[in-house]
């Protein structure tokens, strides 16, 4: 997180505003500041604390929202489809199996162009049952039509909420947004966080005034079926909204930085990338470890840099092409694997570079699956592999990081 100078707030003043809170509290607080009309969610670890905090805000009269204690994640997202169509600003949060249970509704909400915002506290998908962090859940939903933003730390996960509403509700975009934060690693950690206020958020985020709602004064039909003569165009319009979102996400990030003095990158961010020969590309909380690791390697004279993917959907093809054009080798670290192929981000990234003059080795490392720690030693191994691929050619396009051969 870079600090951008803001005239009225010095760093010292800003630090004085910070409070040490749980990640889930910071997110719930950010949601509260966006004043959603309807919240609907179902308990599932490690997301539950977010909605518990929101319930408490409602119970204490600090948040005037309808809070639905629904019977499943499927009902959670379904009820928000109805509420959003009735003109409500809506919020939910979920993870893993809950997101999988919502799968059918995810496509529906996106297809109906309903600007719902949801936090995904990323967690592995069963089987085997595992409650710890990886990105298989949201990466599995990458084609659902939702915009996906990935947060590096608690402050970013919280600050992404008002940004998500601003992107989603823009009449040019009208697309739901998933804010992904690593389960436990970010949801349960206590960190110093600068909490937002309703007044500040109101200056940044305009009220939600949708053009089309369910209203007996002006009856409209939502969710008509489209036969082959119309379907392609409706899907194209969704796709085109994602294309427009590429600019919108950047613009909103800049507007947020102007208002609050905090910047996390737009579609992507970079770290010590200017003269980097080895570039690591990744998303989520592992970025903190990688940055520390890069600092050490830089002090040893190794030219290593980082590209952080903040927006996975829409995929920042142009931004990545630009960021990686002078690199000599790229290593992708990602917390998912497409069984039967390779890491999803690895495939996306290679595709982005294919029709460009950038002809460099790109290798990938599924890592941190089911919550396994990604250590400094792991990062060094990735960089070693990348250098070897550059100097001697690719040995393996993809390698499971810290695979325990003794268990196989």
């Amino acid at each position, binding site marked *: 997180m870079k600090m951008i100078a803001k005239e009225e707030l010095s760093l010292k003043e800003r630090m004085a505003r910070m409070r040490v809170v749980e990640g889930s509290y910071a997110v719930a607080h950010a949601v509260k500041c966006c004043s959603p*009309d*309807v919240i*609907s969610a179902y308990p599932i670890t490690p997301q539950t604390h977010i909605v518990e905090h929101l319930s408490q805000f409602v119970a204490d009269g600090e948040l*005037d*929202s*309808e809070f*639905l*204690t*629904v*019977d*499943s994640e*499927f*009902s959670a997202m*379904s*009820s*928000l*489809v*109805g*509420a*959003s*169509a*009735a*003109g*409500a600003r*809506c919020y939910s949060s979920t993870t893993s199996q809950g997101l999988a249970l919502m799968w*059918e*509704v995810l496509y*529906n909400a996106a297809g*109906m162009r309903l600007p719902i915002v949801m936090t995904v506290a990323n967690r592995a998908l069963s089987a085997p049952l595992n409650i710890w962090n990886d990105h298989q859940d949201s990466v599995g939903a990458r084609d659902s039509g939702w915009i996906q933003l990935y947060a590096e730390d608690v402050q970013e996960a919280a600050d992404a909420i008002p940004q998500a509403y601003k992107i989603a509700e823009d009449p040019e975009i009208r697309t739901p947004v998933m804010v992904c934060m690593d389960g436990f690693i970010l949801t349960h950690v206590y960190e110093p966080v600068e909490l937002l206020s309703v007044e500040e958020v109101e200056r940044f985020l305009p009220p939600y005034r949708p053009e089309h709602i*369910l*209203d*007996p004064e*002006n*009856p*409209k*039909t*939502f*969710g*008509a*079926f*489209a*036969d082959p003569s*119309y379907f392609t165009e*409706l899907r194209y319009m969704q796709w085109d909204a994602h294309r427009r979102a590429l600019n919108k996400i950047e613009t909103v990030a800049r507007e947020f930085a102007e208002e609050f003095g905090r910047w996390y990158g737009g579609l992507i961010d970079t770290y010590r990338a200017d003269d980097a020969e080895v570039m690591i590309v990744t998303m989520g909380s592992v970025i903190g470890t990688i940055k520390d690791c890069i600092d050490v390697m830089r002090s040893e004279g190794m030219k290593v840099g980082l590209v952080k993917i903040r927006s996975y959907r829409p995929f920042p093809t142009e931004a990545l092409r630009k960021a990686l054009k002078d690199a000599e080798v790229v290593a992708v670290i990602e917390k998912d694997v497409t069984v039967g192929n390779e890491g999803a981000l690895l495939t996306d990234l290679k595709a982005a570079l294919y029709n460009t003059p950038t002809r460099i080795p790109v290798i990938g490392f599924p890592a941190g699956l089911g919550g396994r720690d990604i250590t400094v030693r792991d990062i060094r191994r990735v960089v070693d592999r990348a250098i070897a691929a550059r100097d001697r050619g690719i040995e393996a396009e993809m390698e499971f990081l810290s695979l325990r051969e003794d268990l196989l």
Partner: protein
Amino acid sequence: MEKLLAPGHRACAGCAMPTVINLVLEAAGPNTIVATPTGCSEVTTTPYPESAWRVPWINSLFENAAAVASGIESALKHFGKNHNVFVIAGDGSTLDIGMGCISGMFDRGHNVKYVCYDNEAYMNTGVQRSSSTPPCTSTTTTPSGKVSFGNPRPKKDMPAIAVAHRVPYVATASVAYPVDLRRKVRRAISIPGPAYIQVNAPCITGWSFEAGTTVEIARLAVETCLWPLYEYVNGELAGVKKIHVKRPVEDYLKAQGRYRHLFRMKGGEEMIRVLQQLADENARKFGLLYEGDVACTSGE
């Protein structure tokens, strides 16, 4: 009054569903938002860019109309708006795939009026058995055959499930009794909280009866006591439609292709007796007969 479901929709000639919808909307009026699941009513009324709905209408998915309506009602409550919120759904989406969402909506006490037009099978996909299909009914997934009399299971008692959720107003109705249906819709609206009304809605394609006899078939279901008309208010039986002349179930069964096998197969008579017992049990349980009345035993 202009019909709130416009003519020109694509439902089959003789389909009871559009009539049920218009009767419901006549009673509810234009200040109404309707959610319907995927099914016959949706695919026959909203081929983009056309719509037969003159009230605000939404379809999301097959199994989530009750949850969608929950969200609509919650948003309206938040905004202080006062509109009726209705679900109008078939039996497949109600008794089978949508059961979880409906249970949740009932449990949370949303002010949503749920109307199930019950045609006793999955008609939109081609007459497959649902848990609302009566016993001995031939469907495309429980066909009658050399060793089968059709659906082997009883009809799921959805109104009882609604009552068990402490839904304050639960009723059955029939397309053949429009005055009764409209009254029940108005009564459902007058009682705050969820309501459930299950309406017998014959399907000409799936039930296979003579064109022009939809209402007659529905009336026979009531007159045989196979489709008792009753209402529960706050868990108590609050009213039934009494039957002057109780007709034998054969009168109802023989008019429909889905029961043809019962009159042709060896052992069919025994199955008809089982269905007669169901009707007799309904008559006894709900007190459908006037004291001293006798059941009509002949066909006419």
